[in-house]
């Protein structure tokens, strides 16, 4: 049932009936200008449905990070249309976009980006503090969140004492603690071994399920493709194919995993 086509196609996928969370049409992005200009995106059309886990795959330099940066509102597009949860960042403006990210977007990075001088609970509390939740409440919710990812007994530890997989679980807690509507993950498993990577994806899959959370996951790692609802393959600044993944099969797994 998986199809790979040479021309850009939009496969409806298993969640085609759900509302659109991210809508992109004809997005272009060029870095620099003149001789040294790099055309990172050459017209990207893509949509992500509410509750869907979409993976972005493709060779190095094809524009994956650029695309999720634009979708997450940390980078401005040049041309094209892009709405996230019905909002256009060009209309929201810089401060509106910042506020939008604070309330609606969660981030997971390859290098975790946990603040090494803060405890796990403090790290996880950061998005809540950004949203002006009271400190005591923020820490309490952060500890709750850490409990859900199995790190409830390490809330006062600092990140560098943790293994890579544990650190990524903390980062996922931080990305989800303020209940965002969109989660963007850039190579979340690349720094991890296979088993740990699988566990992290299971975790991501389980938190996505049942929520109105859409996930966009950039990856090189073919072994985690199975967790995707759809897989968008990019090449040279374009989406060249869209494949339906087996992610929905993990739905049964979700229920058992959610604690």
């Amino acid at each position: 049932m998986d199809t790979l086509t040479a021309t850009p196609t939009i496969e409806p996928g298993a969640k085609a009936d759900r509302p659109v969370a991210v809508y992109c049409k004809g997005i272009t992005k060029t870095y620099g200008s003149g001789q040294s200009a790099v055309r990172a995106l050459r017209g990207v059309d893509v949509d992500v449905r509410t509750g869907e886990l979409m993976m972005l795959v493709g060779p190095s330099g094809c524009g994956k990070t650029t695309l999720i940066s634009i979708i997450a509102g940390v980078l401005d597009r040049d041309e094209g249309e892009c709405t996230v949860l019905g909002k256009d960042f060009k209309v929201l403006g810089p401060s509106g976009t910042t506020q939008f990210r604070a309330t609606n977007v969660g981030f997971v990075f390859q290098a975790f980006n946990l603040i090494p001088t803060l405890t796990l609970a403090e790290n996880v509390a950061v998005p809540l503090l950004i949203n002006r939740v009271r400190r005591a409440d923020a820490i309490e919710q952060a500890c709750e969140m850490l409990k859900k990812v199995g790190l409830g007994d390490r809330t006062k530890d600092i990140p560098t004492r943790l293994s890579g997989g544990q650190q990524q679980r903390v980062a996922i807690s931080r990305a989800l603690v303020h209940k965002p509507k969109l989660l963007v993950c850039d190579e979340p498993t690349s720094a991890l071994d296979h088993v740990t990577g699988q566990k992290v994806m299971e975790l991501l899959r389980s938190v996505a399920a049942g929520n109105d959370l859409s996930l966009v996951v950039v990856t090189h790692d073919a072994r985690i493709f199975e967790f995707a609802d759809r897989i968008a393959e990019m090449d040279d600044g374009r989406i060249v194919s869209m494949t339906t993944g087996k992610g929905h099969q993990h739905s049964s797994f979700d229920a058992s995993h959610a604690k």
Partner: protein
Amino acid sequence: MIGIALKMLFRDKAKYFGIIMGVTLASLVITQQGAIFTGLMSRTFAVLTDMGGPDIWVMDPKVQFIDDVKPLQDTALYRARSVEGVAWASPLYKGMTRARMDDGQFQNCNIIGLEDSTLTGGPPRMVKGKVEDLRRADAVIVDRVGAETRLARKGPGGKPVPLDVGDVMELNDHRAVVVGISDNTRSFQSNPTIYTTYSRATTFVPRERKLLSFVVVKAVPGLDLHVLCDRLERETGMAAYTKEEFKWKTVMYFVQNTGIPINFGIAVGLGFIIGTVITGFMFYSFTVDNLRYFGTLKAMGASNNRLMGMIVVQSMVVATLGFGLGVGLAAAFGASAKNSPLAFRLPWQLLFISGSAVAIICTLSAMLSMRKVVTLEPAIVFKG
């Protein structure tokens, strides 16, 4: 977020220590050097500090500072006394004499001659004896530090024995008997100070045509001193300054005519520059070290204003701690030097100056860091 900012700062021990060091160093050097300078400058008018009674000093118009004595005609005293608003006016002799020591060496001393009848302008505090003892034959009062150091006698075994009441000195070939020891403010040249009566003082110094150094004046109660000064100048043709004015005139003379302010200015300037460089560098590198995390916060929706707020809080904390430490160390230094010849004076104005310098240093450092954070692209968070 403020809590987060402080934890980021406090838990980065090495950087935190370095930044505090920079601020401490700057405020220590500025405060300490400034205090020594202030102390030295206040010694230039020690005579004025120690003379409590008179409000106004009348002198030759060409006098530039307290030690720049230009003798007046004896009649100056009567002219001053005749001015309306003068409660009383007394003559004051201020000059130098040479004390002959046991070993045949001479020691220069300041000599102050007080009006014979009233003894106006006597020492501020007596350690031994009374001011009135100056009425006895050949009587002089010597200041304690002078008596213990430069005028001390050689005792058995070469140990210095302080000059004491009852001892006899030789001043300009005249016999003088010590009748009291006074406690004086240290003077700039740190020569011993000898008090005696006006008429006796004139015998302790080489004969001159005119001997009256100053006329010291007390105003009638309630009269504005500046009004009286103007009146004295107009009616006598002499210069008249309030005590405060004369102190300033003296300090300004030293400031303008000696290399002292430049030397201290250089030390203070170096303290400021080195403090700025260390603090700025350490603070900036603290920010740059954390740039990845500032970028992460930015991506997660922290506005530039809030990130700047974090940096402001961090810099205010190091400013406060560094300033406190620096001033504390400077004050401890001052306290430990209390009984030494070192000049040290720490008025609130000086704290204000070093506080302002620290504020400038930390503001500059913070601005450098803020610029870095504000121009940071949140998209860098996805870069490896």
